[in-house]
């Protein structure tokens, strides 16, 4: 009996947030029949994909005991550059007036390169100058945003090619493309974190940086790679959001870093380092998306939504800390 009770508690602690998600979905489905349609579930998946992709990278960053405040700005900068290279011939305000329509691969690669480069700069600063991640990425936040405004002169870039639109609004086997891309990135990040030496080292760096160093982990190289990967994901997320709006604005995704950090945190990744999972980040992102979608459908005012979101984040962390304390 004792043993059974104990294991139940274990399961609940380990997967508590999944139960919360399921409970939310069940309650919403009962309250509003329109919530439990396939179309709405696909909407939720699509809406969570943009910050969900960011949350995947944020998981690695936070496991390594870091933080990245610049992902929203990096997303914005990558998006406007990608959009400027992905305009269709019919665009009335072309960024490059004399350029023909480029194949979709070029703007996509450009976004990934810009994102990775910004991430690499973050990683380089953190690894080689030793300044705290909070400061390095805070600097990058305003720098990347500044470049986005300079690049666009503050104006949106719109009328993109049909291929770009397909990335944001198209479907494969009935599943929206943003969700497909999200799923692919979940799998890649999961494998990276769980099945590679790189992944084990991410945990080692966050768990005990000195021990990691002594056991031969090149900590500097690890930090550099982790932030570069985060930047790459911001670039991917930029492509998805640009496709969704078939345009990009220099101020796009302001504050998304906080949603990404919230998703990761709700999903049980610990800010004291060394603890965290990819599925946690996915569930955390879904919890936020279901909450936002559900409260809008219920007609709850958006100011209350913000308060509820804040409470959920705090409660999730309290539960996690209790769990981790007991383990010790």
């Amino acid at each position, binding site marked *: 009996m004792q043993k059974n009770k104990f294991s139940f508690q274990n399961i609940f602690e380990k997967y508590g947030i999944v139960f919360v998600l399921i409970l939310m979905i069940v309650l919403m489905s009962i309250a*509003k029949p*329109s*919530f439990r*349609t396939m*179309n*709405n579930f696909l*909407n939720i998946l*699509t*809406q969570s994909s943009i910050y969900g992709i960011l949350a995947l990278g944020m998981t690695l960053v936070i496991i390594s005991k870091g933080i990245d405040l610049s992902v929203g700005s990096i997303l914005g900068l990558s998006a406007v550059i990608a959009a400027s290279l992905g305009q269709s011939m019919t665009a*009335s*305000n072309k960024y490059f007036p004399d350029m023909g329509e480029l194949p979709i691969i070029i703007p996509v690669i450009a976004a990934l390169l810009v994102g990775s480069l910004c991430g690499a700069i973050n990683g380089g600063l953190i690894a080689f100058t030793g300044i705290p991640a909070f400061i390095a990425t805070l600097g990058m936040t305003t720098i990347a945003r500044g470049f986005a*405004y300079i690049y666009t*002169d*503050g*104006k*949106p870039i*719109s*009328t993109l090619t049909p291929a770009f639109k397909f990335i944001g*609004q198209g479907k494969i086997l009935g599943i929206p493309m943003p969700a497909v891309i999200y799923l692919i990135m979940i799998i890649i990040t999961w494998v990276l974190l769980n099945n590679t030496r790189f992944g084990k080292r991410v945990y080692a760096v966050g768990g005990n940086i000195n021990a990691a160093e002594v056991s031969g982990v090149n900590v500097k190289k690890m930090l550099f790679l982790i932030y570069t990967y985060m930047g790459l994901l911001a670039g991917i997320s930029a492509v998805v*959001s640009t496709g*969704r*709006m*078939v*345009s990009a*604005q*220099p*101020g*796009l*995704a*302001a504050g998304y870093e906080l949603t990404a950090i919230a998703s990761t945190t709700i999903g049980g990744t610990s800010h004291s380092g060394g603890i965290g999972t990819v599925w946690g980040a996915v569930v955390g992102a879904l919890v936020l998306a279901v909450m*936002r*979608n559900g409260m*809008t*459908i219920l*007609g709850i005012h*958006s100011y209350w939504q913000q308060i509820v979101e804040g409470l959920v984040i705090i409660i999730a962390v309290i539960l996690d800390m209790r769990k981790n304390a007991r383990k010790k």
Partner: protein
Amino acid sequence: MKKFVLMFLIVIAATGMLVSAVGAEETYKIGYACNNFNDTFQTVIEGYAKAYAMENGVEYVYSDAGEDILKQQDQIKAFIAEGVDALIVVPVDTSAAEPIIDMATEAKIPLVFVNRNPFAGVKPEDIPEGVYYVGSESIDAGIFQAEYLVKLLGTEKPVGYAILVGMLSNEAAVARTEGNKQVLSKYPNYKLLAEKNGDWQRDQGLTITENWLTAFGDELNAILSNNDEMALGALEALEANGRDDVIVMGVDLIDDAKTAILEGRLDASVLQDGKGQGEGAMKIALAALKGEKVDPITMIPYVLVTPENIKDYVE
């Protein structure tokens, strides 16, 4: 050595600043404090103000507050310390304009508010001397949208509509929404399904509309948006869901909105005359500096732009 280099650089920088300050000719210097360059329409107004300043040999400096009240106050302080002769301000928050007015009055320089009206409901004679407003009556934009909606959908069959609201701290958002409701509440067949703030952003307009489609389905017949960016986001959501029957209207007539009206996707936008406001603000600042008599409030009228008259607004 390091210290020496640092000192050396500081001395050079200081000398440079001094020389440039002394060397400046006797021209007017005007500071333009923008609320937020991320708001596309604001860059339009600012562009016209700047162009007019350049044509008239005015020395022009500008700042972007990123929608932060305190940051804007600091920027205005810096302008005054720099010695600008007049200020043009798009206030971040119209209800917090008083400190800005105090700063300008204390420095004894003219202050022109543009686009966002801190004096809504204030009598012209109660506006402090040397302070002006150039802009449009925000509520009109909402009234124009709603009246056009009634013209399109009539006064008999039931219509469900939703409003995409800008940032609630902006007078324009409150007043435009108010204008929508003022007209439509007179008709019993119009039902307000929801109103939600999308902070002027296209991505939020898109997400909110997706969720509205889930919540209201075919009940939703029209979306009135406080600006074009959110309206264009709503359009993306509607089109992705195959709902081209929903009427969508914005405000500002930005370039993307022009294209969308020409393509028959967007049903209407309300033009706030960015040129009239930007040039107007600069003209009034200059007139005040030259000691001419200027009315405290200059209203630039709105224009409703629909597929019928869009041709007049594209070159």
